[in-house]
């Protein structure tokens, strides 16, 4: 997997930082699962150039409105633009990569 990871993000390769925000609702198993999956994926594909912000909607319910959060967990790619949203526990790595534009669609 390692070689693929270094190759595939070629168009985005640069100094830019990946700014990711993960919305969860409390410490549910699904939330924890999603966070773990995200962490693994970033370490694999974006090592050293990503930051993850976790927002627990149970603590900050008002923040759900801003990013139009309906489903939980939702991962929002704030940077690089355009904004992307990925919902679910991120267990389907292929779809996450497609959703983050780390792998071409189709």
């Amino acid at each position, binding site marked *: 997997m390692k070689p693929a990871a270094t190759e595939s993000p070629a168009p985005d390769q640069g100094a830019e930082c990946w700014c990711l925000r993960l*919305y969860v609702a409390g410490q549910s198993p699904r939330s924890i699962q999603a966070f773990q*999956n995200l962490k693994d994926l970033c370490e694999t594909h974006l090592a050293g150039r990503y930051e993850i912000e976790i927002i627990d909607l149970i603590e900050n319910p008002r923040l759900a409105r801003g990013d139009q959060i309906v489903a*939980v*967990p939702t991962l929002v790619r704030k940077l690089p633009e355009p904004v992307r949203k990925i919902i679910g526990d991120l267990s389907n790595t292929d779809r996450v990569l497609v*959703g983050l534009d780390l792998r071409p669609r189709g």
Partner: protein
Amino acid sequence: MQTGPQAVSHSPGLAKCRTGICGLDEITEGGLPQGRPTLVCGAAGSGKTLLAMEFIVRGARDLDEPGVFIAFEETEGELIANVRSLGFDLDDLIAQNRVALDYVYIERSEIEETGDYGLDGLFIRLGCMIEQVGARRVALDGVEALFTALSSEGILRAELRRLFRWLKEQGVTAVITGEQGQGTLTRHNLEEYVSDCVIFLDHRVNNQVATRRLRIVKYRGSRHGTNEYPALIDECGLSVLPISSVSLDHRVSRERVSTGIQRLDAMLGGQGYFKGSSVLVSGTAGAGKSSLAAAFADSVCRHGGRCLYWSSEESSAQILRNMSSIGFDLGRHIQSGLLHCFAIRPTLYGLENHLVRLHKLVVEQRPEAVILDPITNFAAVGDAAEVKIMLTRVIDFLKKEGITALFTSLAPGTGHGQLEHTDEGISTLTDTWLLLQMVQSAGERNRLLYVLKSRGMAHSNQVRELLFSERGIDLADVYTGAGQVYAGSDRLAQQARDQTAALAQRQAAERRRRTLQQKRSGLLARIHALQAQLDGIEEDAALAEAQELQRLAAAACAEAELAHARYAD
């Protein structure tokens, strides 16, 4: 149980939550089931969003129940603008923290589904808003948009089921709208989850005229009207016409109201129409139907009553002008607020819409009399059966309210039997039926009036001629004879002829009297002459008698003297 804290109800059954929507609370016998979700379904444009919005706004504004509105199809800005035209100031209610509005938006192309998820985001947003305004009501408008946005139907169904259960737990009364599907109430079978109360809104087009109808499909644990009820969306929002009472138990009045024409009153037992009865004035074109209606309107207003004049042919200004030409100053009554003219083409709306409008106007104005002039034009909007149903509803409604109703109707033709027949077939429903007829004779047309029927009063069986002048309407006796009815100048001619004939008769009688007199005097003269003759004869006879006696005496005397002379013994 999760009934709301103010679970108060007039019925021992289910606690109900008033919607505040005109008519809907009557049909549902108190409102929607309190603390439970209600599904409102219907095709696009049937008024689902409006119903949901009115439920929230009226609750927050009039019934002290703050609410949350979640839109899945329109943005906050669009919603606020849309309902502003109905007089709902959502901005203000939001500023007062009585209503919370949110737009939930998911664009499928921007979203990737990667495994298991829940709709906690929606729950949290909803919960946060309920808490913020202390909501007692929630509306979810177009929640099915989630099905197009998210692909895993299994998760969605489970989550929606959880959502509606959660709403019940919150003790809020909810309205959920869903688009009608093919052969199902909603496209995604929301009725499977929201089954306490289901309202169906229908929007049909017949003869190019759109009609809205509302039906309660089900209402668990409560009685409700099961018919399709006509609904209307106008500048005041949604209203439904609760035509629940088709029973014949309205109060009956013995009071009378003047027809506005003295001699017509006289024909109707001397006092005019019964108050609260329905009157049909039918006749051919130009026979004076509207004028009779105007006379009645004028009379009602002059006695201080309110009158609603619903015209479907002429504009208000035209009615005023035309009626002032026969001495009815209706403008005065409009200024004093007693008369309300409402001119509208029947083809503008469906029949039900007219019914709802009339209903609303009557409820607003509380008139003593309602005039529909004419009802004939409704036939353009619906078929005969529908028009009859609609007019029956109007009559029933007005009778129930004790309002005198006057309808005018154009008779289809002048042929035999056609006059005594209306296209609308409502003649059996009306209490008094006046028939106006034009008769043509001697190169002119004149108006005749008959009282065809008038229930419950001794009414005249006479035909009268209707006379219009700038002083008003009057009735004149017509000349009948030899199967002919004389009216107009014929009547005048007949009057003159009658006068001549009477004069001739008088003269003839005089002549006869004179002749007899002459005969009598002749005879008397002759009697005198004969009497004189008789008297002469009598005199002669007496004289002769006296002479005879003298002669006899003289003779006796002479005889005695002779005997003496002879010394006879």
